[in-house]
């Protein structure tokens, strides 16, 4: 079988996923050439992983927000505000020496983020204000509040215990633990691939190519993280904690999207709000939950960012919403799990929850001959009828 035959048998969605992986490699190689070989250095990979973890983490939530046909423009400001709340409480309000200080402020920060998300979700889902308006107001309000409560000051330093989340010297796993974590992750990943192969969801070439790519990438990254030595030692940093947080959060949320009722509900709400409501999906609660999750993720992002910077500043997360929304790669339209549209992320956010996409027939499935009367899906921009956006309203 030639290379072309293999490509032809691949499911389009799998082909797209592999293409994403390939384009990631191409981008890396180009940057390596342009930077004169600096890109492929352990230090760069380590910093890159830490920096993109926050964006990727928020993207996980933003994908869900966008699937429900909403948007959250306030993520940067919410991140800034929750970060500032944590900073002020930990550094100014509570005693600096107390051991309970940082766990308590951390918990308060996470709760604050969730509450903000719940509030905005309430306005969108129950009051019926468009999410664009609500979160644009949130963008301004929460940034303003950040300035107000801090009076423009920067707060520093955090307790040592808190700094484990930032991926600095305290915030990495070390070499041995990194190999163990990487090994476990690989086993889980390959196990999932094998299960899809058995159930017929994935074809053999995809399983082989995908498994090979994922294994190579994981091992390569861990090797790089371990090769980046802590100052004045030859001990490697290992996996940075933000990346670990991201992986755990993305896995957990991905499981929910794929295997819990709420995941199906999210897709149903995005596809057809009215139909979803009529068949008994609690549409408003679904939207509320999605926004609450977004708020929680903002708070986790705030923990990572402040811990990394070891300071709470007023400009934390400024313009972050643009990076996050760009990371969702929604191709100018909202993802609806239709051919040509999928909510998977930008290459740099490869750890998104990956909802199962059912584009086209499955392996071994016989398609009926095309129906000449079927209305063909519109191509992008070609005579697509304008559809009024649906507003969440009580009946």
């Amino acid at each position, binding site marked *: 079988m030639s290379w072309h035959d293999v490509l032809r048998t691949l499911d389009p969605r799998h082909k797209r996923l592999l293409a994403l992986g390939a384009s990631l490699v191409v981008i890396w190689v180009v940057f390596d050439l342009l930077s004169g070989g600096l890109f492929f250095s352990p230090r760069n990979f380590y910093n890159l992983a830490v920096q993109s973890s926050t964006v990727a983490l928020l993207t996980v939530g933003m994908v869900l927000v966008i699937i429900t046909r909403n948007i959250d423009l306030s993520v940067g400001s919410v991140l800034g505000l929750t970060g500032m709340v944590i900073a002020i409480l930990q550094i100014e309000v509570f005693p600096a020496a107390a051991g309970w200080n940082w766990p308590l402020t951390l918990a308060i920060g996470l709760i604050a983020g969730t509450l903000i998300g719940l509030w905005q979700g309430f306005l969108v889902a129950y009051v019926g204000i468009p999410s664009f308006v609500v979160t644009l107001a949130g963008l301004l309000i929460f940034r303003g509040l950040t300035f107000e409560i801090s009076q423009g000051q920067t707060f520093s330093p955090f307790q040592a215990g808190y700094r484990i989340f930032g991926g600095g010297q305290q915030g990495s796993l070390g070499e041995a633990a990194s190999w163990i974590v990487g090994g476990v992750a690989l086993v889980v990943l390959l196990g999932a691939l094998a299960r899809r192969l058995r159930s017929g969801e994935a074809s053999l070439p995809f399983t082989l190519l995908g498994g090979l790519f994922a294994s190579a990438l994981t091992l390569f990254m861990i090797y790089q993280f371990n090769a980046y030595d802590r100052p004045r030692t030859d001990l490697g940093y290992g996996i940075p904690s933000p990346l670990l947080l991201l992986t755990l959060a993305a896995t957990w949320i991905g499981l929910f999207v794929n295997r819990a*009722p709420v995941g199906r509900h999210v897709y149903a709400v995005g596809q057809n709000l009215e139909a979803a409501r009529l068949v*008994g999906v609690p549409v408003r609660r679904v939207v509320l939950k999605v926004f609450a999750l977004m708020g929680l993720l903002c708070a986790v992002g705030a923990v990572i960012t402040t811990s990394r910077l070891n300071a709470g500043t007023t400009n934390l997360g400024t313009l972050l919403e643009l990076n996050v929304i760009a990371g969702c790669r929604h191709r100018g339209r909202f993802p609806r799990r239709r051919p040509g549209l999928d909510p998977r992320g930008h290459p740099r956010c490869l750890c998104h929850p990956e909802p199962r996409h059912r584009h086209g*027939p499955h392996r071994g499935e016989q398609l009926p001959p095309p*129906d000449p009367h079927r209305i063909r899906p519109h191509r992008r921009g070609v005579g697509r009828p304008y559809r009024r956006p649906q507003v969440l309203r009580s009946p």
Partner: protein
Amino acid sequence: MKPLLQIESMTKLFGGVHALEEVSLDLHSGEVVGVIGHNGAGKSTLMKIVSGALRPDHGRIRIDGETVTLDSPIRAHQLGIEMIFQDLALLDNLNATENFFLGRELTRSFLGFRWNDAQRMQTIAKEAIHNINPHFHRFRTEVGLLSGGQRQSVAIARAVHLDTRVLIMDEPTAALGPEETEMVRQLVLRLKKRALGIFLIGHDLQDILRLSDRIVAMRGGRVVGTVEAARASEDDLLGMIISGKVPAAALPGPGAVTLDQEKD
């Protein structure tokens, strides 16, 4: 015999417009009641209220003689009221099984969270859909990619599962070919034997006459009259729909407002 479902003096206002005005209607189990009328006569509004999608401004619904509050589609499902919508209300980006159980997924607990019981849902949905349409096999394809008849099978199967007592069919044959129309007809007869009460909304008077036991005509948010299908002709029905003329053979009882009363 006590009616399965009683609608009593139902009133619904949209703004200042009376979509429904004091509508009363009964449905017995094992009975098919056809509901006919112009567009905007209030048929769909009435049925949306019964299926929990709309809330009435005034009026009561009783099931087995007991007053119930239908404040959401979920509540209606719990009471055994199901509706097959004209546009089927299927979610194009989910597959047949996911659509079948949407909003009432079977779950099991693990680590304190509720997870889909995919295996069990698959089995039950498969059986139910095969019951309606033995040729259906594309359980893993998004329903947006299925044919009209296949989509209809999924929507019907979803509505007529075991605990359904009242079924509302909104123009079930409007978008179907002759073969599939016959399938729906057979289905209605089968469901009647299972002692379901069925509301059949439609514009095809021939179909309604053939399938229904009683036919209720609505006009301007009111019930014009009720006739027994066996003793009514197509002309009688047209007369009721168009001019509100109640034929001599009309049944007395709830909703049977004569033309004279209406004028008062």
